[in-house]
């Protein structure tokens, strides 16, 4: 049976390496990450699972940056108030970022930490990369 570790246990683990999932610019400047499965994770996690996580992240970012009625309304309202509304109100983007942070924490707790991995929220890296930290797994009966 695979060793399972909680997020707490990971705090005491050794960092073996980090993998970086870069941005995918083929659709322009929107925030999107490459779905390509990094080779270093092959032994650690299921490819499908990983791709699903990244795809969900991409969808969430697309939702944040979507040009639709709501964002136009927000933009026009902001323009009329000489953009002072940004000082008081939380923007749609920020709301989605909170959603993303929650999603990543959820994924970490449920899926990645038990496998000795940790996803870092891209916003902490300037939305450039999804950093995945691989912790050393010295269990004898490792997966």
């Amino acid at each position, binding site marked *: 049976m695979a060793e399972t570790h909680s997020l707490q246990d*990971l705090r005491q683990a*050794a*960092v073996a390496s980090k993998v970086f999932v870069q941005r995918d610019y083929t659709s322009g400047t929107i925030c999107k990450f490459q779905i390509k499965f990094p080779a270093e994770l092959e032994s650690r996690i299921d490819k499908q699972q990983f791709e699903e996580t990244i795809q969900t992240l991409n969808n969430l970012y697309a939702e944040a940056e*979507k*040009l639709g009625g709501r964002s136009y309304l927000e933009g026009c309202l902001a323009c009329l108030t*000489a953009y002072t509304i940004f000082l008081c109100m939380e923007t749609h983007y920020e709301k989605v970022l909170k959603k993303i942070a929650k999603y990543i924490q959820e994924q970490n707790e449920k899926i990645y930490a038990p496998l000795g991995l940790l996803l870092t929220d891209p916003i902490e890296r300037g939305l450039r990369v999804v950093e995945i930290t691989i*912790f050393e797994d*010295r269990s004898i009966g490792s997966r």
Partner: protein
Amino acid sequence: MKNREYQQIDPQALATPPPDHTSRRLRRKWEVFPGKNRFCCEGRIIAARQSGVLPLTLALILLTSGLFFIFDCPYLVQNLTGCIPAIGGVLFVFVMVSLLQTSFTDPGILPRATPEEAADVEKQIDNPTGSSSSYRPPPRTKEVVINQQVVKLKYCFTCKIFRPPRTSHCSLCDNCVERFDHHCPWVGNCVGKRNYRFFYAFIVSLSFLTTFIFACATTHLALRSRGGNGLVIALQESPASALELVVCFFSVWSILGLSGFHTYLVAANLTTNEDIKGSWSGKSGGEDVGNPYSYNSIIKNCCSVLCGPMPPSLIDRRGFVPSDDSVQTSPVEIQLPAAKNDKNMCTQGTKGLLETASRSPLLTSSCPQAKPQAMPAVLETLPEIVPSPEPHPPKTTGGRQSTNTPHKHHSHHRSKAKQTTHHTHKTSNSSPRPYHSHSSRRKDSKNRDPKFSSLR
């Protein structure tokens, strides 16, 4: 029952941090920010280090508007309508608010790469064979296809990242800025993705304000001189109006021109940087190049640029610098003097990066036994990072941009008699182009000489 394979942390090691750490308070990220920026109000307000001519801009606007309200308004309210100060007031407030927001908003600065990230990128780049340390390595580029258009992403040696499309490094602020438009000395800040809409609102409202004041001052003088006194006497009675007229007359052309130019840019979803470089003009090569970011609809372009979602600031100015364990940071600090000796202009940035090496608290705690493994990983990154910019000639803090990217100036010549300063669009890119100064430009000349070959 979980069978823990990981080493336990020795609580004693963590409970008693070394003396020099206890005296250091927790610092916020803005205090260790590597770029050339100034921060006020505990990191809430950001501005470029050089405020440029922002004080002059403010003084001019305040002076002209002040004179207008004090001298023109009373007369015009009496003889015309009371709406005049109201309209003037609204325009003035709009101008001031948008100016301050342009100047003090993060334009879309990209934080520099963490050491691990930089090392990862270095690994992926093939080192050109035979590149000795005596000359600079060729600029690193990565090609990506966006909307059937090949776009080259350039590597920024200062920030240690491949710049996203439309991002450029501002040498004045020493930051990579997303959707970099230009560095505007009049507002004392870069204009980029996050504050372009404020900048546009500023110049448009300023055009209206200048035109309005000009019209009111003219009307005022005309009304006064109609009373049979003549223009000279009217001018003597109200010299302030004369001053306003002069200031407005000379500024209205430039500001209207600039507004018109930026309206064109907004409609075409272009940046000043791209327009100057002729990235998408397709003049050279004769290939069918078009702007891959344009939605091919003026309305949609305008909406996306001006009314699109407001992206968040990526630099997290008010976040706390994680207090790294002495276990992890002390070996790093030993390496730093070596890095500094290389006259690497990025050492300041590297040190800043190392201080914020891992934001996640999970990575800051490492057990003593694991230290030997963690350390080499960190130490290895330093030699990797340092040699790459090493071949660069050492530069003083003045002329920043680290790499093979000489500074390129674009001077927007203003036909102002009083002010001899130029509206300088400072753009910098990473392609090796000779220093070029554009002396005059018209907003309506879309057929510009191809001074710069488009990005290939």
